[in-house]
């Protein structure tokens, strides 16, 4: 197997790679999953720090935080979710296209954190289905990157999508839609029942 570098890629002896289509699709989903900006509180600062130069999410293909949920794959819920914010969180999640994943960053998003009171939703999994929980208050950028890598492994293996199809999982919360539109159903991939 030789590579004549002077000819660039054309100098490769064997320029053909074979793989399962499913693996290639999962690989591309993993390698360019764009997060939706859902920075709420202190965890948002650490999330921005993870995107900064020292910790650099760009090497995972994730430095582009899309403001529009239509263009995003991963929603990193970074911070505490109050009662007023919960319907907004649900609506943004509903607006994301399948396949989508949720990372619950920080203890406030995972379980209500140190604020066990009337004002917070005790864990965003009451509102949206969560795939990876990242503990910490706030989790440092390294913890966030570890949680992202964990999610990427699950994306690569297709485990989460399989599970979701089987259980139709997630909270049964619906948000009152304007203009009488029907509420989106989660857990149903196109063409499945």
């Amino acid at each position: 197997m030789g590579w004549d570098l002077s000819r660039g890629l054309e100098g490769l002896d064997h320029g053909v790679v074979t793989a399962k289509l499913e693996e290639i699709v999962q690989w591309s989903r993993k390698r360019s999953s764009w997060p939706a900006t859902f920075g709420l509180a202190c965890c948002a600062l650490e999330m921005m720090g993870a995107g900064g130069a020292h910790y650099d999410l760009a090497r995972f293909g994730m430095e582009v935080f899309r403001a529009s949920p239509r263009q995003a794959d991963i929603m990193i819920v970074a911070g505490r979710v109050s009662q007023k914010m919960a319907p907004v969180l649900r609506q943004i999640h509903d607006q994301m296209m399948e396949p989508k994943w949720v990372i619950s960053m920080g203890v406030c998003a995972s379980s209500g954190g140190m604020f066990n009171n009337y004002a917070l939703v005790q864990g965003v999994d009451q509102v949206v289905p969560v795939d990876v929980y990242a503990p910490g208050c706030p989790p440092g950028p390294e913890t966030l990157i570890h949680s992202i890598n964990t999610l990427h492994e699950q994306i690569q293996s297709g485990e989460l999508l399989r599970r979701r199809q089987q259980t139709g999982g997630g909270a049964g919360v619906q948000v009152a839609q304007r203009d009488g539109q029907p509420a989106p159903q989660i857990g149903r991939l196109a063409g499945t029942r």
Partner: protein
Amino acid sequence: MSTAPDVVTAELSEGSQEMGPRKGATAAELLRELGAVLRLSEAEAAALADEVSDDQQTMIINMGPQHPSTHGVLRLMLELDGETVLRTKPIIGYLHTGMEKTGETLTYLQGPTNVTRMDYAAPLFNELVFSQATETLLGIDGDIPPRAQWIRMLLCELNRMSSHLLFLATNGMDLGAVSMMIYGWREREETLRLLEMITGLRMNHNFIRPGGVAADLPDGWRDAVLRVLDLVAPRLDEYDTLMTGQPIWRERLQGVGVITPDEAIALGATGPILRSTGVPWDLRRDAPYLHYDEVDFGVVVGSYGDCFDRYAIRLNEVRESMAIVRQILDAMPAGDYRIQDRKVTPPPRGRIDESMEALIHHFKIFTEGFKVPAGEVYCAVESPRGELGCYMVSDGGAVPYRMHIRGPSFVNMQALPHMLRHGFIADAVAVISSVDPIMGEVDR
């Protein structure tokens, strides 16, 4: 494939908290949304209501709460005439955490963990003001060892630097200078690394506690601080060159979001917003706490009250903070890092094995908490956003009876409708960024 049998439907609409059409609003409501600071007569208000003859010409749009430029979960309802903003109504509460209620269930030693998460860009200031209020109620505010006070000063000024660097980063990004985001975060990382070396955590440190600070400065702190100062100073000059003289930057910030001194005072604005109008009020100089009367620093004041002034003030406040930190390096005294009153300060861990009394004190402080005599007090410090105050009421128990934090961003938000009026919607982003709100302390 089953969905839950009882579907919970959640409401997105916030009813009367949102902005309604102009015709239905009362005169007083209109005035407030127009940003008026003085009460006009009913006739003048009616004239304002007829400013736009046809309701169809204006559009009420919603910005947020999930939006890349609103600095957290701020929701703004804007009434637009084309691209011009007429009325603004901020809707907050999307980050309300019930911290003041939680504060009534935590002891005074646990209190800083709670309040530190309010202004999470400058957490040490929240801890400082809470500790000061507790110490005043206890009556020990004159007995805190000098070294503890100087360490508090050092940490607060480093925190002010990291908070203003965050402002420079987000302000740059909001206005399109995206590389400023990366640069600002690079500097902030260095400061956070230093804070991690001293306090153990990058954010939400819980380091400044009633009685002093949690631990002494580690070995090698002087070199670490000098390294950060030498690193940041020339880079600040780079950012100055990158932004301050740049024509696009000036066009976007000068003359935008103007507020006059009287209006700022009437609306209760403090901090860089007030100083940008020319009022030279800074609690570090005018009501000194810690040892600010023993260090030499300048209070940066603007003259036009626009966004550019606020940006320039914060940039120069980083320089002033660095000068203060250099003076602290020279003046740091030796001594205790917290008061030696065993009723308030937990004993060193080593002593617990040796002395029964130390064990009992440790136990009582960490389980029940120390009791604070009844009374009420208000303490204030100058945080990067303005006057951060703590009003605390004690009934003699081990937990505060009422703990209220006066968040500067909460009060500064009231200046938004006024600053946004008759500006373009693109300027709205610049103005919000220049107010530099942190929603954690707005909503608490």
